[in-house]
């Protein structure tokens, strides 16, 4: 073979293989980017941040009329338990405000939603800056061929073959196994309480990063304008943890509350009316995260709140029509 032939074969072979791979990835389109994703069902395969970021470009706007934004605390809230709406759980495990921003921008940039749920937890505003470089526009091109895409394929294959258990469903919810043993939860929470009292745990850290707070404000402002209803909720904190962090939480709620408008619906699961939820250890996995039954209880309460508001709105509209 001559050098010229080598170069020609290389150019032709490289172009053909690349074009073939790109075409294959566009046809398979695991992130619902290159053709209509209506009626498709796309669970999260591979890295959660990448999948949810890419789904926010097309899959979520085309298939859902509501979104749930939050950190790991709301990652296991199942939107199927929310009646009357089709909500995507865009919560990010270990995510802060900066991680939620690109998802929110993409979704609100594409469509107007009926409902936005925002789970406010201190972790969202503890710091600012992207924790990873996984949620950048470059990921769009990565969906044509990249190691992340390869990882998603392999992950999907392993889940479909039953080699590993799929962690997320097609509505973005982290699938939990059965509720943990209450004795284990009690030990975990007691340890967290002890750590907080010794000043050793981050569980009680309610400091607010001003940049993160400004970022949260931007998300809330956009959500208010781009969705018909916005519901903000503070997830329940285990009673024994809440008892020693009540003042810090009140200050935190006051600061975040200053970002909310009169029309925003707020549900605080740490107010006295929800003490039963907080006192039942079976509702928690640890000092922060909700168990499967705890998540179901929270979702049920939120669903009921929105249903009541919708009913009231319908009644007002009906009365206005009669008049």
């Amino acid at each position: 073979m001559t050098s010229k032939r080598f170069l020609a074969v290389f150019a032709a072979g490289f172009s053909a293989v690349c074009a073939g791979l790109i075409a294959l990835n566009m046809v398979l389109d695991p992130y619902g980017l290159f053709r209509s994703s209506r009626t498709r069902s796309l669970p999260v395969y591979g890295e959660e941040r990448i999948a949810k970021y890419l789904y926010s470009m097309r899959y979520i706007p085309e298939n859902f009329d509501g979104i749930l934004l939050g950190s790991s605390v709301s990652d296991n809230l199942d939107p199927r338990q929310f009646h009357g709406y089709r909500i995507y759980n865009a919560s990010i495990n270990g995510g802060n405000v900066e991680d939620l921003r690109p998802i929110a921008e993409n979704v609100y940039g594409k469509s107007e939603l009926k409902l936005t749920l925002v789970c406010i937890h201190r972790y969202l505003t503890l710091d600012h800056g992207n924790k990873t470089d996984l949620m950048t526009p470059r990921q769009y091109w990565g969906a044509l061929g990249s190691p992340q895409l390869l990882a998603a394929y392999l992950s999907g294959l392993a889940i479909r073959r039953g080699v590993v258990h799929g962690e997320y469903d097609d509505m973005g919810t982290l699938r939990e196994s059965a509720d943990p043993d209450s004795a284990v939860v009690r030990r975990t929470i007691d340890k967290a309480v002890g750590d907080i009292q010794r000043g050793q745990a981050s569980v009680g850290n309610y400091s607010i990063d001003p940049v993160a707070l400004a970022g949260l404000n931007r998300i809330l402002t956009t959500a208010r304008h781009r969705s018909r209803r916005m519901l903000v909720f503070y997830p329940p904190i285990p009673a024994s943890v809440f008892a020693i962090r009540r003042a810090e939480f009140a200050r935190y709620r006051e600061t975040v509350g200053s970002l909310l408008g009169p029309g925003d619906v707020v549900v605080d699961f740490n107010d006295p009316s929800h003490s039963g939820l907080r006192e039942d250890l079976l509702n928690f996995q640890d000092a922060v995260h909700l168990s499967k039954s705890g998540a179901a209880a929270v979702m049920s309460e939120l669903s009921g709140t929105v249903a009541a508001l919708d009913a009231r709105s319908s009644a007002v509209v009906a009365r206005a029509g009669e008049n």
Partner: protein
Amino acid sequence: MTFNSLGYMFLFLPAVVAGYFLLSRAADRRWSKLFLLAASLVFYSGGRVANLPVLVGSVAGNCLLATWLLTPAGPIQRHRRAVLVTGIAANVLFLCAFKYAGLLVHIAFPLGISFFTIQQIMFLVDCYEGLVEDHNWLDYFVFAGLFPYVTMGPIVRWKQVVPQLNDPKGWRIDSDNVAAGLYVFVIGLFKKVVLADSFFRWADAGFSYAHPLSLAGGWIAALAFTFQLYFDFSGYTDMAIGAGLMLNIKLPQNFNAPFRALSISDFWRRWHMTLTNFFTTYMYTPIIRSMARITTAKAMLATFVVMVIIGFWHGANWTFVVFGALHGVALALNQLWKKLKWPMPAPLAWLSTFTFVVVALVFFRAASLAQAWQIVASMFSLRGGLFNYEPWIGIGRVDQVLGIGWILFGLATQVRGKSSLELQRAFRPSWATVTAAVALAVVACIYANGVVSRSFVYRDF
């Protein structure tokens, strides 16, 4: 701009090769050189003109000094040695000012300053010693700032580059060189974006772990960084050599299967060879020559001093000094061993050399001496247990499987496979080489398109 960016691979490099040879056809050769210089400045600046003054200032200053050194007659001839000493001192001060002033004030670190400063010191010495007969501004600027090596080497001498640049045989595109260059470039790209970046995730997870590592964890982190650094830097060098070949410029090798070394002196003959040559020729040899009577003890001391300086050259951190000092001690002991003519079985020689290199590189990578000691302690004790999975959780299961696959492949190439130098020498256009090149290029481009693609380690030096 970096070699592993898609913009460099698919736009910059093809455009520069095409433009260079198109302009080489013009009657006036200066146009193609000016084009090469402009391309190099675009590459170096990354599109920001503010990045250029340090490089341009350094090159202009050294060009002026060289003009004085090469002036055949006149009063300056009587002060040639003073001009040389001033020039070297100015370059060293210039380097130190940017490299170590960061300890006191925050200043931006100019890309490649350690490399182009050394290269220009070599040039001044060559001028003084009569190894450079003549130069002109254009040739000098192209030589000092040529994009394949300006940021990270290989460190080249005038006589290695400029005669090739001015050889009319090199003014026409040579498909043999383009094919060989492309082959080497693809190998280098694969080494960087697939192997080095896979090793990076394991090394970074280990070195970022806040708690003491387990015995296995310490070795995983240290070995991962050793191979990350090797594949990263040698991959870069392959890409530089490949790009040079496409322009009909053969650049010197920088690596020659260093992990097959049977002694620490053998290792340094195979690792970062152009830097080793510089320090041997321009520092170690003059020190030895300056001694009235050379003894083993004095040679050992000179070796130690030079290696500490090499460590310090890497940056203003005690970790680099300790890295250099460790190698200095090892090289000195190696000299003594040779002098005593003590035998050592080859497997033991390989194992001791490799183990030492891995341990010393922990100091090179660690953020502080305390962290380095902690990791080295974990490698030789069970205080952190035998194995702890926690540091590697962040990599993710699928990436772990993929990463382990590439890591095993990388290790196999080091133990059994041909080095890229051997592959380059054995290169003949054939169906086997073109198939391998396409496969490597496709996989490398998939990886380069990922967001985990990293910058080169030596860009920080």
